[in-house]
């Protein structure tokens, strides 16, 4: 009796499973897309693009999954290890190299046609390229570090502004900042600082700017990487330290502030210049600054060159995804000229596509777009991209050491020595 019953029920279960299987194969392909968009405009742009794709492609339906920058790394590591992966995920060039090294990512190069290849900036491709020409992610938007300035203060002081052809060097910045640091009422406290350099999370900013000094923090020898903090690297560190502690022309409180946190006092006229701030900051100014606040964008500072490290936002496809070709179709749609324009405007960054950057939206004088967009020519890949163990070096060593340095608790020599010795110990563990 009971044996018969069991047989019957297992046949039933089997039937149910089979019929679901049959249904599934008749259903459209499902693509899961984890996005990290967080600014309102940019989320709207993402939804618009996904909705339109789903309308145009009934066979390939994209599911939009909102993720967060704080947890994406842990989330993806767990996904890769369990094999339950989204088909597309949004991240940044500097960190997908680590995933690629572990064999988690699909090579997108075979899917990329000539048109897309030619129309994307070489500097952007370089940030996602593997050793053998693989492409580990589609770079779609990126940013540069610019100088923001208070128009009223600089005009009043009669300072001659730099141009793209004739940019300021760090020495120029130093002397201008000194000139613009004023104690109006003579009470011994400075009322207007020449500059403010937000350094709460200093590593990305310092690394990206160091390229202009000819430095790069990492050198490769025989396939092994070592940390090297030489004269070029120390050059930038000492300019900043001198401005804060020797000239006293850069606001020392900014050492503990983030890029967003220095802005309110900038609107108040407390700082004349914000050197080395991300282009996205313009969005905050447009949204939050008082109506009568007059400001502008200056071209990036020149060390030896104006080169800057770039770290585009990317879309990648896990190797474990069962629908790589379909996922790539969606990515191509996502980075089509009109769409990537929408996305870049939503985040106040630049599209990585040449044709999109040429659109009038990015070439207008308004909100400093033109000067900003011209900086794209200086964006290039930093030598730290793809260095095994770079994320650990950045969090564990470079961040606290630079924070202590800029808080004037250790010397540049000590900082350099610690970043090298502690860093190289960490790098040795990685293969």
């Amino acid at each position, binding site marked *: 009796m009971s044996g018969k019953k069991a047989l019957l029920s297992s046949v039933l279960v089997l039937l149910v499973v089979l019929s679901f299987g049959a249904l599934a194969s008749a259903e459209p392909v499902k693509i899961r897309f984890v996005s990290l968009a967080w600014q309102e405009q940019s989320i709207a742009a993402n939804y618009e693009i996904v909705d339109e794709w789903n309308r145009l492609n009934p066979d390939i339906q994209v599911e939009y999954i909102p993720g967060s920058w*704080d947890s994406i*790394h*842990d989330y993806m*590591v*767990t996904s*890769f*290890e369990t094999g339950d992966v989204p088909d597309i995920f949004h991240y940044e060039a500097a960190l997908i190299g*680590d995933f690629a*090294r*572990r*064999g*988690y990512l699909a090579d997108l190069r075979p899917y990329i046609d000539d048109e897309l290849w030619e129309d994307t900036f070489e500097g952007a491709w370089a940030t996602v390229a593997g050793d053998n020409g693989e492409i580990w992610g589609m770079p779609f938007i990126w940013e540069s570090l610019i100088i923001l300035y208070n128009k009223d203060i600089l005009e009043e002081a009669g300072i001659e502004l730099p141009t793209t052809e004739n940019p300021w060097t760090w020495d120029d910045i130093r002397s201008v900042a000194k000139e613009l640091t004023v104690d109006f009422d003579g009470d011994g406290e400075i009322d207007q600082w020449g500059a403010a350099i937000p350094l*709460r999370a200093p590593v990305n900013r310092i690394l990206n700017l160091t390229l202009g000094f000819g430095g790069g923090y990492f050198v490769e020898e025989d396939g092994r990487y070592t940390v090297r903090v030489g004269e070029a690297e120390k050059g930038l560190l000492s300019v900043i330290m001198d401005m804060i502690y020797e000239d006293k022309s850069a606001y020392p409180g900014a050492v*503990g502030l983030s890029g967003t946190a220095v802005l309110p006092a900038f609107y108040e006229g407390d700082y004349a210049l914000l050197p080395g701030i991300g282009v996205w900051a313009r969005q905050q100014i447009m949204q939050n600054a008082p109506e009568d606040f007059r400001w502008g964008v200056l071209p990036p500072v020149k060390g030896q060159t104006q080169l800057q490290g770039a770290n585009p936002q990317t879309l990648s496809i896990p190797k474990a995804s069962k629908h790589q070709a379909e996922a790539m179709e969606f990515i191509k749609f996502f980075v089509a000229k009109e769409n990537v324009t929408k996305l870049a405007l939503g985040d106040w960054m630049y599209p990585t596509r040449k044709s999109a950057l040429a659109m009038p939206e990015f070439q207008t004088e308004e909100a400093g777009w033109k000067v900003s967009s011209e900086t794209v020519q200086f964006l290039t890949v930093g030598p730290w991209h793809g260095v095994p*163990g770079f*994320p*650990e070096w950045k*969090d*564990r060593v470079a*961040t*606290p050491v630079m*924070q*202590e340095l800029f808080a004037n608790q250790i010397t540049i020599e000590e900082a350099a020595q610690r970043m090298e010795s*502690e860093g190289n*110990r960490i790098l040795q*563990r*990685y*293969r």
Partner: protein
Amino acid sequence: MKQRSVLGQLGLVLPFLVPVFLLSVIPLVSGIYLGFTDYQFGWDPKFNGLDNYIYMLGDSYFWSSFRIGFIWTFGVTAGQILFGLGLALLLNAKLRFQWLARVLILVPWAMPPIIRGLMWNMVLLPDTSGPLNYLLTQLGIISQPINWLNNFSWALPTIILVGIWGGLPQSSVVLLAGLQSIPKELYEAAGLDGAGVWAQFRHVTLPGLRQVIVAIVSLRFMWNFNAFGLVYALTQGGPGGRTRLPMLFAYEEGFRYGNAGYAAALGNVMVLVVSALLIIYLRRQFAEEGGM
């Protein structure tokens, strides 16, 4: 007949044993094993003996995280017991609105650690929009708002206070139960002998609570040493690693940097250290008791 009953018993136990084996024993054993391999995510684990532990000995981040872990564990456990005892005594006294106080004291217990963390994140906001900074600046206790969770010297004390707060209900409820089990006659007798309030507390209450205190100290010690959610939500181990407890350190190694073998080794060491300390503590307690 006999065989059948053994089988029958097995049949009863099996449904429990299978999940225990699948969900506890296998992960535990494989976790211990991974601690002796060079496992990095993306590659196959290879047995490497004591290499992880040798690296650990020279790993300054490991030492600093354990140092922070001990400051945190001792601070939080001591605070939970001391304040818990104080609260329990108050709740045990015949005061008005006692019922309300007893309910309110349970509130933190009802919140998961992550929610506690999010809530305190808002309380501790770095500018005067944070209630704590607002209150303290209004009262003139501090002149500038303090960035509690991001200041190198304030971060650890701050999370210790929040940690104490989160564990208070449990310790005070357990201690309250202990208090209520002390016979009233003992206090009367002590009173007749001329013992004041303090002497009664020292000679009646404390000895009466002794076993409860030993139990709650051991439990809280283990839980606090292994704390994760609250601190993860508050500081993620920052600033500059000043609040990187051992558990966070192991989590970072595993999930952020993909060094699963090393993370498992850290887990093994944590289990060893906690067990060793507990054994020493419990032994001493029982030895003293035997001597009494």
